[in-house]
């Protein structure tokens, strides 16, 4: 087996048993990136020297017989909106083209402690705004399954890198589906943790009440390992939550080995997620996956999420509103691009010209929309109304979860679409997130698990859980992986 085809557990065992060195493992990935990244454009920045020196350090650890954390020597990639000290962080934007991160994000700090090896930074829609990675200022990423198609977005570079074996795992961020939708399009596992489970410190903010960092991996087990490593309460993120280890969590081994446990599982399927306009083949693949659980003994229950149709319009107000406030910081004064056109430019000119040229079309569209929704006279009609609808969407899930352990839905209404197919029509593009945004509004954990293919393009099943029940939805996902 090629070194680049291993899972985290397999690579860890190989390192511990000295079947290969951390340097060999790292070099195998760097070589593959050199070879394949030109056609996929998953990586924006490749961190060769640092990766090699990190790998050498791991080999010394092994030689000294020191205990190896499971992620030690494991090469991974990072979405380029997560800060790594002294490495460029562009957020896929011209405005941060030459920005060097002055500190590590909390998730990076944690992964460095576990001695994981940083390969580089991956492509994304500018400031994570988009569903195809076509909004990057540094060119589109392509889907490894079909180079004429998008990898999804906004964590398209991370999903494509995992799918094309350019890294062992990757980090992404998810505001409205940005981990799950590209995971579905690229046939990898992608987890959006519960809001508050993972610190957002060092994540370039898009919509702060919705953003979460999460893993994209080859297997569910790898996903559990990475989530375990990055979750934490952090004094630098006041919305991060101390995870209660005493909460009722099914042991993954129990659930996976025992038919009895599966028999106790109640799975909710909301009819609002099987709508007109959905690709029929995608619907068939999702329904077959649900049937497999039924055959294994799980009880399938129809649940109602009556406010589902309002989730996307609600998101279309809340996300741009928060974005317009968050992106006010790019002013050409503190860091990033500064556009001074003439000697007579005053402060307002610097703002206008820096932001006018530094931001791409989609980012400007959302800043404009958010500014409008928050402007005098419109706040109540738009932002406040959306926040109230958000309560109703959240309550829908609360009621449904009184009856079921998990909710199954499609991740996206279609498989990966063609490059250029939706980029000219913003509303059409937003609709590819129609099944994923509710989860962010309600703050729930959800994972995309590969469950089949349509015309050789991967399709993901979305498993949504109760708050802080990541372990449970991953254990449930593992059943499908083995089936």
């Amino acid at each position: 087996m090629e070194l680049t085809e291993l899972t985290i557990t397999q690579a860890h065992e190989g390192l511990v048993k000295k079947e290969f060195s951390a340097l060999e493992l790292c070099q195998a990935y760097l070589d593959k990136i050199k070879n394949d990244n030109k056609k996929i454009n998953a990586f924006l920045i490749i961190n060769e020297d640092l990766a090699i020196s990190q790998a050498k350090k791991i080999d010394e650890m092994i030689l000294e017989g020191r205990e190896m954390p499971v992620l030690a020597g494991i090469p991974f990639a990072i979405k380029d909106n997560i800060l790594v000290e002294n490495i460029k962080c562009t957020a896929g934007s011209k405005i941060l083209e030459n920005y060097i991160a002055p500190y590590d994000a909390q998730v990076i700090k944690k992964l460095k402690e576990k001695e994981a090896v940083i390969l580089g930074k991956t492509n994304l829609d500018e400031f994570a705004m988009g569903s195809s990675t076509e909004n990057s200022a540094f060119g589109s990423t392509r889907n490894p399954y079909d180079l004429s198609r998008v990898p999804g977005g906004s964590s398209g570079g991370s999903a494509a890198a995992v799918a094309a074996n350019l890294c062992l795992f990757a980090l992404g961020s998810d505001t409205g589906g940005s981990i799950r939708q590209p995971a579905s399009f690229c046939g990898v596992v992608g987890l959006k943790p519960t809001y508050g489970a993972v610190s957002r410190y060092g994540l370039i903010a898009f919509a702060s009440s919705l953003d979460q960092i999460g893993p994209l991996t080859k297997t569910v087990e790898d996903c559990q390992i990475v989530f375990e490593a990055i979750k934490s309460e952090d004094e630098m993120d006041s919305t991060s939550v101390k995870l209660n280890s005493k909460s009722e969590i099914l042991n993954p081994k129990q659930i996976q080995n025992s038919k009895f446990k599966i028999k106790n599982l109640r799975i909710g399927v909301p009819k609002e997620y099987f709508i007109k306009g959905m690709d029929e083949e995608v619907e068939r693949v999702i329904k077959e996956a649900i049937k497999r659980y039924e055959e294994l003994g799980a009880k399938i229950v129809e649940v109602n999420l009556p406010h589902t149709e309002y989730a996307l319009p609600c998101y279309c107000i809340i996300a741009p509103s928060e974005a317009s406030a968050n992106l006010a910081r790019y002013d050409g004064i503190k860091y990033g691009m500064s556009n001074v056109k003439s000697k007579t430019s005053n402060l307002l000119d610097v703002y206008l010209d820096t932001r006018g040229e530094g931001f791409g079309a989609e980012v400007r569209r959302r800043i404009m929309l958010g500014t409008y929704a928050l402007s005098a006279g419109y706040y109540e009609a738009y932002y406040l109304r959306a926040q109230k609808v958000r309560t109703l969407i959240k309550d829908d899930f609360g009621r449904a979860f009184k009856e079921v352990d998990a909710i199954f839905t499609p991740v996206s209404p279609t498989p990966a679409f063609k490059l250029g197919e939706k980029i000219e029509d913003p509303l059409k593009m937003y609709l590819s997130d129609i099944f994923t945004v509710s989860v962010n509004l309600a703050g729930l954990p959800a994972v995309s698990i590969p469950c089949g293919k349509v015309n050789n393009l991967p399709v993901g099943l979305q498993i949504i859980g109760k708050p802080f029940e990541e372990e449970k939805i991953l254990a449930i996902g593992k059943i499908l992986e083995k089936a």
Partner: protein
Amino acid sequence: MITKEDVQHIAKLARLSLTEKEIRKFQKELSSILDYIEKLKEVDISKTEPTSHSIEVKNVTRSDEEKEKLKTKKEKLLELAPETKDGYLKVKSIF
């Protein structure tokens, strides 16, 4: 449809310079997105409280003291600025 003046006003609030072509484009695009958002008016929210975060959040405070750790970062942060003078950020005149 929102007017050209609306778009110009929002662009100024948002501190974005726009070309004439972009103004016309935004007029069309923002209008169609706002039409789509109109859908929220169907929902009865008369008895509903707003949700700002999915989890309960409280303000976190700390005492206003200088931290050694942050002091060493100051130089690093200033290096990122386009223009500085005597340890301060330098900006263009307001007028």
